[in-house]
């Protein structure tokens, strides 16, 4: 018994289901929701806006900047060959490399952060239903306690048509 869930075509139904679950004292982390598109308009879709992702990106950028600076300096001084009457450490050209690596750092950091925090890649998680792909919204409870199941089923059944599935 890994969990039980229901599928809703209407986000407002899904929202009600979520509300019922909450009022049944189901903890937020146990409520599973899946949709085939981001849903902004409803509370259940409104989870933490990850503003800190920007800081991670910036951090990555700083790392990149350091890497770029180090690389430029190291490669120029490793075998100091004068060219075109320029100084061995030529800052104007170095700025270009530093800039590019800064941006690269930022981008990579963002992507890593995304993968880690969004738990990607993950093996197909507990509660999922291919019907989500057709626009249905899945609301369910992860490993509910056996005795709570009837109540939860009741909570998910927002109207007569909804059938609740068990896994």
């Amino acid at each position, binding site marked *: 018994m890994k969990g039980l869930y229901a599928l809703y075509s209407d986000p407002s139904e899904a929202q009600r289901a979520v509300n019922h679950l909450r009022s049944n004292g189901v903890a937020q982390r146990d409520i599973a929701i899946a949709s085939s598109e981001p849903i902004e308009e409803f509370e259940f879709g409104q989870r933490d806006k990850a503003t800190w992702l920007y800081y991670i990106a910036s951090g990555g950028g700083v790392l990149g900047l350091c890497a770029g600076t180090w690389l430029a300096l190291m490669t120029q001084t490793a*075998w100091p*060959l*004068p*060219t*075109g*009457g*320029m100084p061995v450490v*030529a800052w104007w*050209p170095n700025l270009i490399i530093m800039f590019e690596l800064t941006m690269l750092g930022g981008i990579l950091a963002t992507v890593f952060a995304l993968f880690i925090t969004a738990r990607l890649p993950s093996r197909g998680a507990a509660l999922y239903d291919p019907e989500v792909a057709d626009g249905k919204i899945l609301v369910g409870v992860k490993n509910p306690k056996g005795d709570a199941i009837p109540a939860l089923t009741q909570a998910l059944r927002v109207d007569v048509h909804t059938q609740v599935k068990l896994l």
Partner: protein
Amino acid sequence: MARKWGIAVDLDRCTGCGACVTACHAENNIPTVGAAEAARGRAMHWIRIERYWEGEFPDVRVKFRPVMCAHCDAAPCEPVCPTYASHHTADGLNAQVYNRCIGTRYCANACPTNVRFFNFFNPAWDKPFHLQFNPDVSVRSVGIMEKCTFCVQRIKAADSAAKADGRELKDGDVQPACAQSCPAKALVFGDLQDPESEVSRLSKSPRGRPLLDLGLLPKVTYLSRQTDV
């Protein structure tokens, strides 16, 4: 004090005979590419004598102007090379490291005087021409750039000879093939750092000017022809 090799070209002495061109071929194992390739613009002449016509018959004049790598101190060909194949040496030579060259040909494009040449094919010498190879100069393979070296092999040889008998290199000890062969002595080679050397004396002449005034600090100075009295 580091040396600064340079050449002074007296256009009033140069007769345009082309001795320097052939001498350069002989000294530096420069291949002849043959008629077909020459017609396709692949002829290689590290030094060339540019000829410019002026006026119309009967009031016609000709200017001769030997052009070789000026080993600029601010050479645009050096920094553009991604592999350091083209870089500046301690005594101010604009070195071309053949093994390091991967043939981007960027240096040749950056050179305002087009003195750099590309090996479009592996050069071939019909035997026994190869017996004439100068063993002090490496033969270049396909896909790399080459150009005038101020006969660096001669500089090195003169250096070690001087070191051997424990004396300083003195003015005139080193002669690149072109200057050596010039019958009219239009080319004078030497150390520009040494104020006594003939080349620095000539380079300071009021007739002296660079081939192009692009601020690239070339080390070849051209003494312009003195106009008629």
